[in-house]
């Protein structure tokens, strides 16, 4: 059933990581990604790897869910690895016809592969442990200072959460329209790319009309329930930093310091 689709890839569990404030998780993810590019040498990677393993263990999300996210970037990953493998100049190790694999090439390719995998797994941990709702809430609160330079932060967050709410509804609607058109002998599958694109017109036009109608209805319903933008609004589920959130921040800072130190001193 289309309606059962969960957006993002939230994995329901009750772990420390799940209970952390979304702002902590967002901030940590950003810091972690930066750290991957700042840390140097084997020890830096080891620090990042250890940190990731620790977080995954704490989150109680099975590892195979993390790997799922990897599948989508296998292609990208292999291209990067291949290019680095063959095109890095240096001391030759293997000679295959006209292509040379160098020692530096192997090193660089392996490090890049690790870096990219860590990046993907790291951000999966966040999306697996945070509902889309919490994410938009977290973003809204984190970006609030941007209000001062006239960025409509509340409005953007509201749009994001409305979009999330309506994606399954519009998907179901697409399915319905598609079936209705198929019943009247529409052909969505055959022909070349241009023909296929053209055959989508009878699908997209009704979908757009219905989306606009829904938007109009929703706007009226929101106004009828006294919605008037972000001012004077209270929150049913306000975000509060708890003790565990401060601890998490301390852990992240420790990780950063250790990683940088490890890279500089040992590596």
């Amino acid at each position, binding site marked *: 059933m289309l309606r059962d689709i969960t957006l993002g890839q939230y994995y329901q569990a009750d772990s420390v990581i799940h209970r952390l404030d979304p702002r902590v998780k967002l901030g940590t993810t950003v810091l972690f990604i930066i750290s991957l590019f700042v840390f140097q040498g084997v020890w830096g990677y080891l620090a990042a790897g250890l940190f990731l393993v620790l977080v995954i263990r704490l989150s109680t999300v099975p590892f195979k869910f993390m790997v799922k996210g990897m599948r989508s970037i296998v292609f990208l990953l292999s291209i990067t690895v291949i290019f680095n493998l063959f095109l890095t100049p240096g001391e030759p190790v293997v000679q295959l016809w006209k292509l040379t694999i160098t020692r530096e090439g192997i090193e660089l390719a392996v490090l890049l592969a690790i870096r990219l995998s860590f990046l993907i797994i790291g951000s999966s941990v966040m999306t697996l442990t945070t509902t889309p709702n919490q994410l938009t809430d977290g973003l809204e609160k984190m970006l609030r200072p941007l209000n001062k330079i006239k960025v409509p932060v509340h409005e953007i967050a509201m749009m994001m959460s409305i979009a999330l709410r309506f994606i399954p509804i519009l998907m179901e609607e697409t399915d319905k329209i598609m079936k209705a058109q198929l019943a009247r002998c529409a052909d969505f599958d055959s022909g070349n790319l241009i023909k296929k694109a053209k055959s989508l017109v009878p699908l997209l036009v009704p979908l757009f009309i219905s989306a606009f109608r829904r938007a109009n209805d929703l706007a009226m319903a929101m106004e009828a329930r*006294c919605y008037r933008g972000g001012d004077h609004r209270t929150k049913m589920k306000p975000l509060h930093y708890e003790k565990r959130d401060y601890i998490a921040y301390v852990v992240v800072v420790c990780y950063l310091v250790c990683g940088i130190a490890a890279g500089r001193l040992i590596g």
Partner: protein
Amino acid sequence: MGIIKVRDLIYEYIRRDEEGNVEGITTAVDDVSLDIRQGDFVAILGHNGSGKSTLAKHLNAILYPTEGTVWVDGKDTRDDAAVWDIRQTAGMVFQNPDNQIIGQVVEEDVGFGPENMGVPTREIWERVEESLKAVGMYQFRKFSPNKLSGGQKQRVSIAGVIAMHPKCIVLDEPTAMLDPKGRGEVIRAVRALNDVERITIILITHYMEEVIYADKVYVMDKGKVTLEGTPREVFSEVERLKELRLDVPQVTLLAHELRREGFPMPKGVLTNQEFVEALDRCISEAGG
């Protein structure tokens, strides 16, 4: 003065062409006056295009009168300063449940209205709990609205309105998109609110079965109120309702046909129970 008072309301939809010239004017509501008392259950009936939905949108200050005046709880809807008070006093439930649920979790949606009103967090939770209990949806509070049936979604929408503590709820064809089971659920919830909480209900519908419990019925046609009275009075006018292309409940119609054939059936029979009793009397009179 009642909770809602409408005097000589006229509303015109103006169609314009691309240059903004007036192409035509449709008078959707034409000289309507209503008085609704606090605690009443009022039904507004009408065929498609009779202006009943346009009238409903005036009671929540979504549309403003072209001519005439609408007062909600003593406040003129054209007064800009009073708009938010009016929208809180007269909550509104719309036809399509999917297009009026904002939250991704039931409880969050119910909390949306109080959030907008600036109610403190703790009180929002209390209001959400009591509203969901009032419509019997409390056990679904953690559900995604996408996983509920139409009737359940519509009850969530009603809870979302109750959480704003309105004095009056306007329901604009809340059952039009539901199956019979969902219709029953919604109407039962609405009646309970009227009976228990004494919230004024204004139910707009074209299902006759839903209005037999109302205190007062208005029938609209072409923007005007053509019939008004208690359900019994209105349903006595079977021929008139047929002219307005409105269906009469089946028992009422059957009683009417029997009367025309010369049986001594009373006018305006509304429920199966009444019909059976009336028929019993007929038979015993005929026998005796």
